[in-house]
């Protein structure tokens, strides 16, 4: 498959930023060859720390380095680093530590390793911490720009990245605007809001819908927190119907974030496409079909919502 994984774009960008900003340090937990923090490690060995398979300690040490004035990126599979939630809650969030939490291998898109390695609750957890920003790029270009932004952002951020390659959904001159949704395809009848590795699937679903005379708008929500309330409000008042799509559990992710805003507005309707069970091993395409994230599943849900 063509394209590039967002973890790869992250690794390359971080290695570039390392030259510009000596305060950037990188911690990993025996996964640097998978999170791609390895690029940074080989260029800046003095500012790279392999903490071993000990993610809880990595979170605390990252917080300590941040409190001492550095900008730590702490990296692992998203499920393992976010799994140390209480350490993140105390030492990063509550302590206002400027730690960048980088979680790769998110969602069922990782395939054959199965549920234990798939992050499916991480957005929900990170979104619950008051000062934690949550960013999930939908292609390599966006990942690159997002990493540049995050290094400058003052405060903790959770960056959620894919293992699998993604085709570009953004143009090469793309500019990343923190907190702002991006309209990738205009449409009059309804809006699909997608995030991360399945933004491409949402675009394909819109193409399927067009064959059925449904004109669906597709919006990429790269910043899940803070969520783009203005954009959601505009859609809720104009079209009313919003389908959310994400490779994450159905509780607490993008769908919940959008539904919270819509419920408070008292206008519009939301339907959520997300993973509804403990997932399993399999090929990514087969998993997307089985768990409802393939383009035809998304299109079918969109029609349900539209005709409901």
């Amino acid at each position: 498959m063509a394209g590039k994984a967002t973890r790869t774009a992250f690794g390359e960008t971080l290695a570039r930023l390392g030259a510009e900003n000596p305060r950037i340090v990188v911690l990993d937990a025996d996964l640097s060859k998978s999170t791609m923090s390895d690029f940074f490690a080989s260029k800046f060995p003095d500012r790279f720390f392999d903490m071993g398979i000990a993610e809880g300690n990595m979170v605390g040490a990252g917080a300590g380095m941040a409190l001492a004035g550095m900008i730590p990126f702490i990296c692992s599979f998203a499920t393992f680093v976010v799994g140390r939630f209480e350490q993140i809650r105390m030492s990063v969030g509550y302590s206002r530590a400027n730690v960048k939490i980088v979680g790769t291998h998110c969602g069922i898109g990782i395939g054959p390793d199965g549920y234990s390695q798939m992050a499916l609750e991480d957005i929900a957890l990170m979104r619950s911490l008051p000062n934690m920003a949550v960013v999930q790029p939908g292609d390599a270009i966006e990942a690159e720009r997002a990493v540049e932004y995050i290094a400058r952002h003052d405060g903790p951020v959770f960056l959620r990245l894919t293992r699998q390659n993604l085709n570009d959904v953004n143009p090469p001159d793309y500019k990343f605007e923190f907190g702002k949704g991006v309209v990738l395809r205009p449409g009059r009848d309804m809006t699909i809001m997608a995030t991360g590795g399945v933004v491409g699937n949402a675009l394909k679903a819109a193409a399927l819908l067009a064959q059925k005379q449904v004109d669906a708008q597709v919006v990429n929500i790269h910043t899940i927190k803070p969520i783009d309330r203005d954009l959601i409000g505009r859609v809720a008042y104009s079209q009313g119907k919003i389908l959310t799509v994400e490779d994450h559990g159905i509780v607490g992710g993008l769908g919940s974030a959008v539904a919270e805003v819509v419920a408070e507005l008292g206008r519009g309707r939301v339907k959520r496409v997300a993973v509804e069970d403990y997932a399993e091993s399999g090929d990514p395409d087969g998993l997307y079909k089985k768990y409802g994230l393939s383009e035809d599943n998304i299109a079918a849900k969109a029609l349900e919502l539209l005709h409901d």
Partner: protein
Amino acid sequence: MEIEKLKAIAKEMRVDIIRMLTEAGSGHPGGSLSCIDIIVTLFFSKLRYKPDDPNWADRDRFVLSKGHCVPALYAVLAKLGTLPHDELLSLRKLNSRMQGHPDRSRTPGIEASTGSLGQGLSVALGMAMAGKTMKKDYRVYCMISDGESQAGQVWEAAMAAPKFKLDNLCVLLDYNKIQLSGAVRDIMNLEPLAEKWRAFNWNVMEIDGHDFGAILKALNDAEKVKDKPTLILCHTIKGKGVSFMEGKWEWHGKSPNREEGERAVQEILARN
């Protein structure tokens, strides 16, 4: 006799592991091959277990905390008859019971869902505590790995087991000296490892984890110890049995292609 039987079974298991991983196209050969001799000895010479009744209440428990090496356990469960042998080749495929990491809700014979390293020993600890509390005489075995031993939770469990005098708990540490991205010594050194466990008040034995006689003797000796849990520090070779995999971190989490798989199988069959 016994040793010859175990040797022959382990050889067969190594072939199954390679075939499964080749067919799956992903997975972890290195650590599966380093621990298979220990798992074979445990299941075929020691464990109180009914292959056709894996949930029998009085069975001995085996928790595979280093869950990524589950192909080794699937191979053994298939040899025993708990799992049908022809299911092995569905490893990591959609709708298969042969999950990439152990899933106790899906697969008979799997005692604990693992795959996030560092957690299995606590679960085994709880099973041992339950055994004591319910006055049952089953034993609990837990296999952990060396990279995994960097996780703090392992040491929380290590602290707790002696407090509760869990002589029904036996930990098998697969000390193959290699983790995912390099040598354990370089990534986060564990030494002096036996001394650490001794300092935590465990009965510690140190053996060659590919010597069936030594494994069997250690398992037998562990049973005789009173009021203390036992740790068997098993010195092993990552990728053991396949020369091009032995001692190489590169074969931690990469499956062999067809040609490599065939070469590996031939080599396993040729070695005695």
